[in-house]
């Protein structure tokens, strides 16, 4: 656990799966009795929550994908990861 309150290498909680819904053409997170929309930046972050990307690596890659300033992206990524953690969607 880093000082950000997140795992250094975030990954999805057991039983949570990122899935591309071909019928609705949308990324969703599947969890027990829950389907959560994961559109745009969310899916790009979640694809990298694989236990292999560090939080910093996720931020680096997102900055490239969205051609944005690293500092701006960093805030968004950490906020999103914290929100996911509170909702029990990330492994602890």
């Amino acid at each position, binding site marked *: 656990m880093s000082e950000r309150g997140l795992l250094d290498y975030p990954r999805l*909680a057991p039983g949570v799966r990122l899935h591309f819904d071909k019928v609705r053409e949308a990324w969703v997170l599947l969890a027990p009795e829950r389907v959560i929309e994961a559109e745009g930046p969310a899916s790009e972050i979640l694809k990298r929550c694989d236990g292999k990307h560090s939080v910093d690596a996720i931020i680096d890659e997102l900055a490239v994908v969205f051609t944005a300033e690293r500092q701006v992206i960093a805030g968004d990524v950490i906020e999103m990861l914290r929100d996911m953690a509170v909702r029990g969607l990330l492994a602890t």
Partner: protein
Amino acid sequence: MIPRPLGLLAELTHRCPLGCPYCSNPLALEQPATELDAATWAEVFRQAAAMGVLQVHLSGGEPGARRDLEDITDSASQAGLYTNLITSAVGVDRQRLQRLQARGLDHIQISFQDLAESSADHIAGYRGAHARKLALAASAAAMDLPLTINIVIHRANIERLEPLVDFAADLGAGRVEVAHAQYYGWALQNRAALMPTRDQVDRAVCLIPRLRERYAGRMAIDSVVPDYYETRPKPCMGGWARQTLNVTPSGLVLPCHAAQTIPGLTFWSVREHNLAEIWTASPAFTAFRGTDWMQEPCRSCAFRQEDFGGCRCQALAVTGDAAAADPSCELSPTHAELRAMAEKAAASAESAYTYRGRNRQSRAIPIPVR
């Protein structure tokens, strides 16, 4: 535009060794000889995925009673569905659970009846059930298979809601379902023995936010509220024919598991129709979809798109008219009658259960832990 369903409840069999007096299966259980085979279930899952279903719940009865549960699980997973097993734990042991996980099972839900073995087995009507549940929950935790604990709440266990939720956390559950008994079918038969008092329900409802705080980030707590004492109806099933569908062991497709209690509805079978066609056009699904079927006070109600008029089966059971407002709504002319029925049932000294699927009533054994 007709919304696409997200979830499918696959009732693989109505066979079950347990006799829970609040079972959601119909009073007339379907016979084993009529059950769909594994190949037909595989086709149902492919059709479900193609129409947008994302999650399948393998249920029953006890799905473990199916010898081909492994193949059925495999086909659900192959279809790309998030695959959940809803089990009593009787008929699924550790070895079998490992096989199911290897075939793609994503998640398991195990029901518990109470904290103490004697009371739990009495409620389930099956000696030894509680011990098997404990063993299977431990196996799931050891296998890192995500676990939901489901607890149906009623008069015999409502006072132990808090320790029951703590117990679920100790078992390693990532989610617990606090499901107050819903009074259809078998539970309606047993209402006098199951109904808690209003005071008990109020206290149980007040506990939930505190328990959610206690387990924030560790265990999700979902609560199905008891609506007999409510003033607003629940959005039953998220609205009729809006989010989920139910396939019975013989292949009939229902908008909800109690829909067969409504007389005059025609249900189509997966043996004769494609699932998407059934969802869109079968009479049972179109009967109460949307708001056109509504009468007053629902028709002009500001909440009609939020609660969809509540539950059709409860409207039928209490008012005799499936298109009436759910009597749990304070705007229903039958609301006071429902409240009086609940209070009368709660005041009853009845403690004997009519166990589901069994002919005889239980002897009036006093509930051991109270």
